[in-house]
């Protein structure tokens, strides 16, 4: 899977009116299928550290587009398992060090391709090992480090929560066993990142940022504390901040006075969906903006019209369209960014 940008750019085909725009499903499927054939580009090699993320993004997009088998399952399974380290963590590619983010993506892929049996066959007790790797990254104050080097970030905490829940190792999923992580300490840390404007930052004291809002709201949602913590007033305040991300073009930005970007269709849209305020955005205008960022000839979606497409913006554009109910796209789970029919099996608190 290549994370290289291009080859195409987002644009509107000549002579087409914005209201006539349609998602070019087959082109996007073909685009994702072609990504791993670009080994003659330097950027393919320079982006190896994003390979497992690329597979997760591409596969999720294919699922939502109704073509879950468009990438060969055996190849994906073999690749993901080749990223597994002895300590239970996954690296971004074979030979790359283990990290919580890539462990999360790997577990999402394994969930979507039904690969846990194969994991257990390759490494007996594999699921538990992965869960232990994650649990060991929790710090005394509830935060999670990304790896043994200790960088902490609310992204890692969210990653820990959703990954453990996919594995069935969140404490609420195993009420008869001692908890392997301290959920109250972790959610207390999230709450310390909450700001007066309703949003959340990357650390206590940091400015609200849509990406961090998604991870914090997602973590509270997976832990089952979202409604009780925010309440209607908290949801109104956060929803107001999030809804102000939509600009006249229909696209969304990540913070006040910043540029719009397709990926915020997901970070902002999913957060609004989780707090039941998605109708605070103009869905038709957001849809038109995302469609103007696709390359109607070669497939793929870019951050903004005229920029080069890539698989990251492709999945978040498609997932954004799923949130607003674009016809023909599968329903996405706003916390997990995976098909809803798959996450429906997760035991929630």
């Amino acid at each position, binding site marked *: 899977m290549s994370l290289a940008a291009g*080859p195409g750019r987002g644009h509107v085909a000549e002579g087409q009116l914005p209201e006539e725009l349609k998602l070019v499903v087959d082109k996007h499927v073909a685009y994702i299928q072609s990504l791993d054939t*670009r080994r003659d*580009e330097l950027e393919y090699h320079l982006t190896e*550290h994003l390979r497992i993320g690329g597979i997760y993004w591409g596969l999720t997009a294919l699922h939502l587009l109704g073509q879950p088998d468009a990438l060969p399952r055996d190849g994906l399974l073999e690749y993901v398992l080749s990223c597994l380290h002895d300590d239970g963590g996954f690296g971004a590619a074979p030979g790359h060090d283990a990290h919580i983010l890539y462990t999360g993506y790997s577990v999402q892929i394994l969930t979507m391709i039904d690969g846990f049996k194969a994991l257990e066959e390759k490494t007996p007790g594999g699921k538990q090992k992965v869960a232990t790797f994650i649990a060991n990254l929790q710090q005394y104050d509830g935060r999670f480090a990304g790896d043994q080097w200790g960088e902490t970030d609310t992204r890692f905490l969210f990653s820990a929560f959703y990954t453990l829940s996919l594995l069935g190792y969140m404490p609420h999923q195993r009420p008869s066993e001692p908890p392997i992580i301290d959920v109250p300490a972790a959610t207390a840390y999230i709450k310390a990142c909450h700001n007066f404007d309703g949003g959340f930052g990357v*650390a206590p004291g940091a400015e609200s940022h849509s990406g961090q809002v998604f991870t914090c709201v997602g973590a509270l949602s997976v832990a089952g504390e979202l409604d009780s913590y925010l309440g209607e007033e908290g949801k109104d305040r956060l929803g107001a901040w999030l809804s102000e991300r939509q600009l006249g073009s229909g696209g969304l930005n990540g913070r006040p006075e910043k540029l719009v970007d397709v990926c915020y269709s997901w970070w902002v849209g999913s957060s609004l969906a989780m707090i039941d305020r998605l109708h605070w955005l*103009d869905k038709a205008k957001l849809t038109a903006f995302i469609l103007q960022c696709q390359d109607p000839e070669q497939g793929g979606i870019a951050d903004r019209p005229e920029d080069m497409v890539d698989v990251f913006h492709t999945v978040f554009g498609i997932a954004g369209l799923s949130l607003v109910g674009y016809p023909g796209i599968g329903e996405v789970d706003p916390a997990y960014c995976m098909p809803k029919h798959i996450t429906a099996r997760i035991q929630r608190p």
Partner: protein
Amino acid sequence: MGSHGIPRVGATFDKSEQARDKEWKQIAQYQALEKDVVGRVNAKDYSDATFQLTSQLLTQNPEYYTIWNYRRLILQDVFARELAAADHPSEQGAAAADKAGLPPAQHEILLLIKEDLQFLIPLLKQYPKCYWIWNHRSWLLGAATKHLLARGAVELWQGELGLVSKMLGLDSRNFHGWGYRREVVQAIERLSGGGDEGKGSGGLVEPEFAYTTKMIQSNLSNFSAWHYRSQLMPALLSSRNADTAARQAFLDAEFELITKALYTDPYDQSLWFYHQYLMATLNPSNAQAPPILDPCGAAEHLQYLDQEIESVREMLDGAEDCKYIYQALLEYSGRYLELAPEGEGKVTVTELKEWLRELRKIDPLRDGRWRDLEGKMKL
């Protein structure tokens, strides 16, 4: 992600044969370098030569996080060897170290850390949004704090304040930069034996507050600076031992500052969020905005609501198409009426309805939100 904001330049198809050949050569060189580095680290070759090769590879690809990890493995190994050899210092090393006022091993470690901090500067400037570079910098400073005497470590951290100001000068909204700034300030205060936040000898709360003023003056629209300003307030007021009158004077000065800014550009949402913040400090139901006033009860809340509704209402003159004014009026009036239901003389339901009607006209994007507000306020 590497591809944010990449316009279509040098599209990857339609390449000449020559360009293809060149790219294949680059790929082969890159892969050979990668193989060399990985091979050496796997064989535990933590030599200076390996270290230099990681520099080469990271200069080409700073997103390759595993190589940053390798770099730290090598540095840790060198630090450990220096510390182990500390009992037998060379004469030369001892002399240099003595001059620097540090034991020889610490002196060597300091030099290595300084050199690596220097290596990162051009990378940070070229890739200011790369998590791994900021992360490595923070690790280096952490290692300095662990291995050096507090005085030496503080000097390094103080140098970081200059660097981060430079980085924020290049991009005043870079959230890595602002996050690193908070980390640097906390470290300096902690290492200077600060005790109470902002009060110690290394107390930076006053200069940091002045820094936000400077940043705001150069660009009003910098919400990152406004946000940081809001975060500094509790420590600032406590370091000033501000009494009731001083706190009120402080809040009034902040309202004056933001009101002036709003008159300059009422269409800038950064400014409205700061106004909202000041109002939130008066609202006990917003736990994320600690009170500035002391005491801060319903009377004070009502007084400022009254004052600011008047002030914002005046902003409408000449800016009747500014949605943020109507939003502020509706929000503050809603709160006002909750606290003083009999105060309808000041804000009438007719007025509220009128503001909402204007808002829906100007801001159809968020019509769902305004419909909900209509229901919530029973308009």
